[in-house]
């Protein structure tokens, strides 16, 4: 019995956001595409689950670069262009940063006024007076970098044109966020801390986080704000999967790709765990290069040594540890007042938090999201949906044993719940109706991603997006094979992964053109 065509133009391994975006873009161009997804749901980590009849968001998930309907940013434009309709809800505040040791407790909101001033600059100025001009100047710089990055996403320029038209991007590209904040701006330490709270959404301390990425993130969050789907992340994933199929993509779930078949340095197909050998000209791969070159390419003699060198040298980004809770009281009754809280139990220092992520537990910087405030209907009346997250490094978990697993997750989760309970002055342990603990092992189980990584490779100064872009064309080590997930150019995040998928599809379309001519 044959379930597949004899041949596809493109096989996409992994039906998550990047893979689905690549597939949609390719199918729009009339290409014959097959998506093979190992899980029985689309979306990868952008998913949800149901416990006792109640749906729970898998972890903290926000869509960026949407902008408002009236002022759409590039992700909204792309989804509109593809005809993907999602019921987006704007999240109320950017974040609250709570750091008692620093005496910091401040809530910031997104928004840029027509005169170019920013809402959050005024909010900070209320407490740290006399800082708003510098903050406005910083955020305008961020915005300028953001605009340039988006422009360069679609266009190629000479170095001179770059400098003429995108001076702020060019001139900050060689610096870390910390260098720019320390050198080019006159801001008190506390304000710099406040403006660094989002570091965890890249998982890179600001001392090694390229300013380019910092600026993009700040502008993105502070300009348009972020969004969640009414039907949880699963709504977004299903809406995209539906569109793929509507565009003629064959989308098969429950199919684990074990091997990528290569001949004469060119891919020609895949083999699944079920034993199907399926042929194609091009492959977009969600599995990390480490996994692809380490064990998927068949025969292994087809792996160029440069490819191994690349995969071995790439610095692995963070993974996830989340406690997802349904609580038996309303947020008000539990003293939960905010949608998004970053909390620090020691003086705020991203280098220290980063070091803490190399060990299990003892994490002082937590992200707590109360989904009720973005999506009031996400739980039955009188209940609360709350997630607590830290993003440690995979290296912290390399010695973990299966026998210790249940106890390990509970111990760490308990500590995290305890910290948040302390901030709230309410013992959340007494209110747990449902609890799920997500670890790197969970990530690995559902996605098989290398070492449970969720953010691809580090956005470090020696793996900067600028350097990635410069060498993009050189890093296709096997012809016809392109990476398609957060380990690619733009890195982590849902919006970024849609972009990673589009970049993958562009590469494939260019190869197709070359092959034709």
């Amino acid at each position: 019995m044959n379930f597949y065509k004899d041949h596809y133009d493109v096989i996409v391994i992994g039906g998550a956001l990047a893979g689905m975006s690549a597939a949609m873009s390719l199918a729009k161009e009339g290409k014959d595409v097959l998506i093979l997804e190992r899980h029985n749901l689309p979306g990868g980590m952008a998913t949800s689950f149901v416990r006792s009849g109640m749906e729970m968001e898998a972890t903290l998930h926000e869509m960026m670069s949407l902008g408002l309907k009236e002022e759409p940013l590039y992700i909204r434009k792309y989804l509109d262009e593809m005809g993907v309709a999602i019921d987006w809800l704007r999240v109320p505040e950017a974040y609250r940063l709570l750091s008692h040791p620093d005496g910091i407790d401040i809530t910031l909101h997104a928004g840029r006024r027509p005169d170019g001033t920013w809402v959050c600059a005024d909010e900070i100025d209320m407490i740290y007076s006399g800082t708003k001009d510098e903050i406005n100047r910083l955020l305008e710089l961020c915005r300028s970098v953001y605009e340039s990055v988006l422009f360069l996403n679609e266009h190629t320029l000479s170095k001179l044109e770059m400098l003429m038209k995108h001076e702020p991007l060019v001139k900050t590209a060689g610096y870390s966020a910390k260098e720019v904040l320390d050198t080019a701006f006159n801001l008190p330490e506390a304000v710099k801390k406040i403006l660094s709270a989002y570091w965890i959404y890249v998982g890179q301390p600001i001392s090694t986080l390229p300013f380019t990425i910092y600026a993009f993130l700040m502008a993105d969050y502070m300009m348009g704000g972020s969004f969640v789907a009414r039907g949880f992340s699963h709504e977004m994933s299903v809406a995209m999967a539906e569109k793929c199929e509507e565009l003629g993509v064959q989308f098969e779930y429950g199919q684990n790709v074990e091997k990528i078949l290569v001949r004469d340095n060119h891919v020609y197909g895949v083999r699944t765990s079920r034993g199907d050998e399926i042929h194609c000209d091009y492959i977009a791969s969600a599995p990390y290069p480490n996994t692809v070159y380490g064990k998927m390419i068949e025969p292994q003699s087809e792996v160029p040594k440069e490819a191994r060198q690349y995969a071995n040298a790439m610095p692995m980004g963070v993974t996830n540890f989340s406690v997802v809770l349904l609580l038996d009281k309303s947020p008000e009754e539990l003293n939960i007042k905010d949608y998004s809280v970053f909390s620090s139990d020691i003086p705020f220092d991203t280098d220290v938090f980063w070091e803490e992520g190399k060990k299990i537990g003892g994490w002082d910087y937590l992200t707590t999201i109360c989904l009720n405030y973005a999506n009031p209907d996400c739980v039955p009346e009188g209940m609360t949906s709350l997630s607590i997250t830290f993003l440690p490094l995979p290296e912290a978990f390399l010695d973990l044993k299966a026998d210790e697993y249940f106890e390990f997750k509970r111990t760490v989760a308990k500590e995290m719940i305890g910290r948040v309970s302390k901030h709230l002055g309410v013992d959340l342990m007494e209110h747990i109706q449902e609890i799920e603990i997500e670890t790197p092992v969970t990530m690995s189980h559902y996605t098989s991603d290398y070492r449970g990584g969720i953010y691809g490779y580090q956005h470090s100064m020696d793996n900067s997006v600028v350097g990635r872009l410069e060498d993009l064309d050189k890093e296709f080590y096997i012809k016809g094979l392109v990476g398609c997930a957060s380990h690619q150019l733009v890195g982590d995040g849902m919006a970024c992964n849609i972009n990673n998928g589009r970049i993958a599809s562009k590469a494939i379309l260019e190869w197709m053109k070359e092959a034709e001519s």
Partner: protein
Amino acid sequence: MKVKGFLQDVTGASRVTNARRKRISSGSYLNVYSDPIREVAKEVHPDPFKVRVVYVTDASPTARTFRLVPCEGKLPPFEAGQYVSFQDLRIGDTLTTRPFSISSAPFEARSEDPFFEVTIRKGKDNGFVSNYFYNEVKEGDEFTVEMPFGQFFHEPMRDAKNAVALAGGSGITPFVSMAKEINHGTLDMNLTILYGSVSSKDIILKETLDSVESDRVKVVHVISGEEDYPGEKGFLTAELIRKYSSGDTTYYVCGPLPMYHFVRGELAKLEVPEKRIRMEVFGAPVDITKADGYPECSAQTFRLTVVRGVHEDVIEASSLESLAVAMERAGIPNNTRCRSGACGYCRCKLLSGEVFVPAEGDGRRYADKMYGYVHACSAYPLTDCKIKIIIK
């Protein structure tokens, strides 16, 4: 605009590009792939694997316990109360799956000679698979299983340390697992099992239950059909439940569907808060036409088109049975685990036609309802239907 100085600023891009090239050139040419986290994930959530029956013993005049060992390697860790799914059961022309609560303890599965047990009463769920097990399965038989699954276990961060189990019929099995684990010192809870049976000879695992009584485990048999039974008589009423509860208590309920409805009502009388009630999923309804909201219509047979990739089959589907059962009768392999509509493993797209989904077995996500996805084990055809399923 300047950061550190014009020249240093404009050469920044080359600086980071060079730093990256330097990093990459430091990488090894060897294949050093290793992913210990993936290895743990595979040990905790293994792919389906083969097990062999090594021992069959009577658990009551109508129930048997089957001890199974892995054909190779280890068994995954699990929580007392979780279930195993028997995959690829071929009975006659039917290809089906069944979930059974594991009646042995987690520590026994992680011992030097790992095993697990399921205890199956004949006649359960129309008796199709349970009778097969009871009558046919013998030592040496091999099966493909997948485990562990289910949310029915003591979660110390959520549940009270004092627990009362409300069990009926073969619903006793997860509590036997819990009791053994408690006595082994690896599950920290106090368990009182209220076990309802019609007559004392129906009690499943009687001897085991006698042997697990300890300072932390108490077993109370509640017999409904024997006038002269010396112990507790009748049903699992609010009064009886109150008698055996002390302080903050979590109630675990496992048994046949009518018992759920009854016990729910009794717990409501005691004003037990929702989070103190844990219910095991209860399988497919015996008669779907009696489910709330089932439309007025007579039993009939529909055409069900099953799409797998580019392949299509057209089979018959009875309105009285789920789409999953229709496929199983036709020998089409499809994924099911809990068979109660909850786990979503049999999620599939309804391409055309109409189905009935009972509210009690509707574990679907919000967006899946919106986009017409159904769980095949809990969707009953009301017209000819076309579905797209996972290629198994």
